[in-house]
């Protein structure tokens, strides 16, 4: 059975050119900032070879950049690895992980419509949550989102 130190050392030696920063936050939590072009290599290695469980991915508009966190849990050593990817805010674009494992399919579709991140090579990129009449190119979870619907009522009527 692999230990926590062996897993982290293995990752650091195997992907030493792709890892930008490694933050050892607590015994249960490691944040690993990686280069965006290495996400398919590292993500599928952690999922397939290290036999991690893919929990969820979360997208954040941090105003200076857009970042995605892919959370993987390694239950045999009780460790949560979060892969952090920083993307350019003007044109955020990254390779899709959906061809490596299926669980990431819907969350990438959700991040694509709510934050406007382009996932290259995604097998079925279409809307998941937003309605049909929602305009193209308007992303509601961006920090600079503005109301586009002229018929919306934003007072309580009293």
């Amino acid at each position: 059975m692999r230990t926590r130190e062996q897993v982290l050392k293995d990752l650091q030696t195997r992907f030493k050119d792709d890892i930008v920063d490694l933050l050892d936050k607590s015994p249960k939590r490691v944040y690993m900032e990686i280069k965006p072009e290495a996400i398919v290599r590292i993500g599928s290695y952690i999922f397939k070879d290290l036999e991690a469980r893919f929990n969820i991915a979360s997208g954040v508009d941090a105003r200076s950049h857009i970042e995605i966190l892919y959370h993987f849990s390694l239950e045999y050593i009780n460790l949560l690895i979060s892969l952090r990817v920083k993307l350019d805010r003007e044109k955020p674009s990254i390779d899709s992980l959906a061809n490596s494992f299926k669980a990431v399919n819907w969350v990438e579709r959700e991040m694509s419509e709510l934050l406007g991140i382009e996932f290259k090579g995604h097998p079925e990129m279409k809307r998941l949550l937003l309605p049909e009449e929602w305009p193209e190119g308007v992303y509601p979870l961006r920090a600079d989102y503005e109301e586009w619907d002229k018929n919306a009522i934003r007072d309580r009527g009293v």
Partner: protein
Amino acid sequence: MSFAVNALLKSPWVFHLSTGSCNNCDIEILDCLTPRYDIERFGMLLVGSIKHADVLLVTGSCNRKSAGRLKTLYEQAPQPCVVVAIGECSLSRGLFIHSYNCPVPLDKIIPVSVYIPGCPPKPEAIIGGVVKLIQKVKGT
């Protein structure tokens, strides 16, 4: 008051629709059916289809997708059908008034007869609201 309305008021059957609520109002509606409150003793029955219902209970702040489905349900309801808005979200959208996905309140989509405020309203408040509705329709 017509004969049909008089007959329906003896035993109003209710249909419950959640248009994107946090499920807390829905739990309070289900509490009304438990032996402690037991609204079935007033003849009210929770039915599984809008086509059997006389009263439509709506919870939740209508979002863009559920507004269309709400309209469809209201059109399918046998007339006369009265609408009861339960909870702060369906009254004025509550916390979600500035949400990108909740553009208009419920009473701008379909006509609403009774408003029951609260987050969530107590089962007593829901029963009281429906009783007031019956009195209002009867005209007493």
